[in-house]
């Protein structure tokens, strides 16, 4: 059973990562920096619980705030450039963060053991959960409480005026600007929210793996972050969850019996999925169909 709880933990954290890219994608911006914010959150939360002795909740709050702050700081220069330039800028930023942690040493001796991040070797011994006697199931529930919370907030945001503004900017920047929407404010705020979610996800990730290193936050993770909302479709937050379950549950775990070939299939299946369903799994017609089936008359509109 613990295996499935562990899998649910992974899916939960990856859903958070995907949601952080989702909100940025709503404004039509493609950010490859989410893995960078995720790394910032992971290292910050880990250092706070291990080195400063904080409890998990304040540490997660701090990592989330830090992620937001970094995202906001990156957003301003990066969003001066549009569209595809942003992909490049954020890709470079994500790599820069990874390289920063590759060169980052901050170790403190604690009871004969040196703790803290050590460059290429990474940051070991983030043992808050085991030390406090949390079971795998408790950790899993803890993670999913955050996932559900974040999804609820995003779902509500989507239906608010702010969500309409985000989608308006995503659909057509020029039209949005001409009705008086401040493009910079909208994009930077979406980026900041995305950074907060990624920082939170990173903080949780650091604690359930207990060992983080720079290599885990590379371009592959940034790709995953983008892949979930794009594969799932931007119509609804649930698409991201479906895609995270599909990728982590089926592509990564379910195909493990294929051994070496699994990694080969992974890339090929992304290519195939984008050719067959360019608007994502849950695209507008599918969503309408789901609403008709489950929502009765109300959803038919």
């Amino acid at each position, binding site marked *: 059973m613990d295996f499935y709880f562990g899998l649910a933990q992974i899916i939960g954290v990856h859903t958070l990562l995907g949601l952080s890219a989702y909100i940025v*994608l709503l404004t039509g911006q*493609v950010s490859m920096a989410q893995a960078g914010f995720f790394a910032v959150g992971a290292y910050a939360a880990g250092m706070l619980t291990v080195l400063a002795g904080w409890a998990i909740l304040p540490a997660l709050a701090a990592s989330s705030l830090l992620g937001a702050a970094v995202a906001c700081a990156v957003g301003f*220069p*990066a969003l*001066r*450039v549009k*569209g*595809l*330039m942003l*992909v*490049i*800028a954020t*890709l*470079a*930023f994500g*790599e*820069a963060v990874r*390289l*920063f942690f*590759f*060169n980052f040493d901050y170790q403190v001796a604690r009871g004969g053991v040196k703790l803290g991040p050590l460059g*290429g070797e990474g940051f070991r011994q983030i043992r808050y959960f085991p030390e406090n006697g949390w079971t795998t199931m408790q950790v899993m529930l803890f993670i999913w409480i955050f996932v559900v919370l974040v999804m609820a907030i995003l779902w509500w945001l989507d239906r608010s005026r702010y969500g309409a503004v985000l989608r308006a900017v995503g659909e057509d920047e020029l039209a949005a600007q001409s009705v008086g929407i401040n493009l910079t404010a909208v994009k930077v705020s979406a980026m900041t929210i995305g950074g907060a979610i990624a920082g939170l996800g990173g903080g949780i990730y650091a604690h359930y793996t207990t060992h983080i290193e720079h290599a885990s936050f*590379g*371009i*592959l993770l940034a*790709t995953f972050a*983008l*892949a979930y909302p*794009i*594969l799932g479709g931007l119509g609804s937050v649930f698409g991201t969850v479906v895609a995270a379950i599909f990728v982590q549950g089926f592509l990564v775990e379910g195909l493990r019996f294929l051994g*070496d*070939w699994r*990694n*080969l299939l*992974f*890339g*090929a*299946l*992304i*290519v195939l999925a*984008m*050719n067959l369903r*360019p*608007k994502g799994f849950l695209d507008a017609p599918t969503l309408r169909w789901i609403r008709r089936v489950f929502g009765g008359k109300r959803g038919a509109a």
Partner: protein
Amino acid sequence: MLDFIQSLSDGVLFGATYALIGIGFTLVFGVMHKLNLSYAAASVGGAYCGLLVLKVFAGAPPLAVFFCAFLAGGLLGYIVYLACFHFIPISNPLATLMATVGMLLLVDEVIVHQTDGMPLNYPALFDDVMLRAGEFTLRGDLLMVFVVSILCMAGLLALLYRTRLGLATRAVSQQAVAAQLCGIRVGQVNAMTFVITGLLGGIAGAMIGASVGTLSPLLTTPLTIKGLIVTVIGGLGSIPGAIVAGLLVGGFESVLQQYRGVTERDLYVMLLLFVFLVFRPGGLFAPKEGRD
């Protein structure tokens, strides 16, 4: 001072390969207004295919390897076009972008799968030649890389500005709809662009293999990022920009490697990118604002 000039010249010579990769990104962007993130991986893949010659004819000359890499790069470019661009509706840029990322992972994994992740030796020309001027030396293989890259760029510019295909390519990149109205087959031009950039990429990959001495799948990610940085610094869509920026980035990273070490080097290259984004977001040779 001598160290500085030495590492600068080595870097600028090696930077020619960055310029080639940058041109590939920029050309596809110019014609299709889309980013092909799998380009650097496909280039390295082409270079790997070049090694197949050695498997079939043991002791084949390096030139045959380079030529095979060149052809394989073109073929891979066409495959990327079919897999990631041809069938996906043009109104859906996110899907194409994601598909090229999938392609990047796929090429990477095929290489790892075929070589067990071990770096392979790559043949080079003139690697025993050293030009000396006092303490200052020029490595023969780097010079060869530089000259081949420059020849490729000259060939590309001749193709773009002296042939009908080049005319059609430039027309599509200026205004795809208008070009179509003039009877240019846009789909064909797009496919040809991918083949041409693929050919360039194959050569670039082979040149990188030749100057480093080995090829490894670990090259693809840094190469993708360097190529993209070159594209931005040069100005998206500008070929002269990509050339200048490639040489600039090559020299810059080599000098910083000299003074700050290999692990920190790339951090400063990213910093250079952000300096450009803040102070000159259009790049060195920003194309004039279009009307559409």
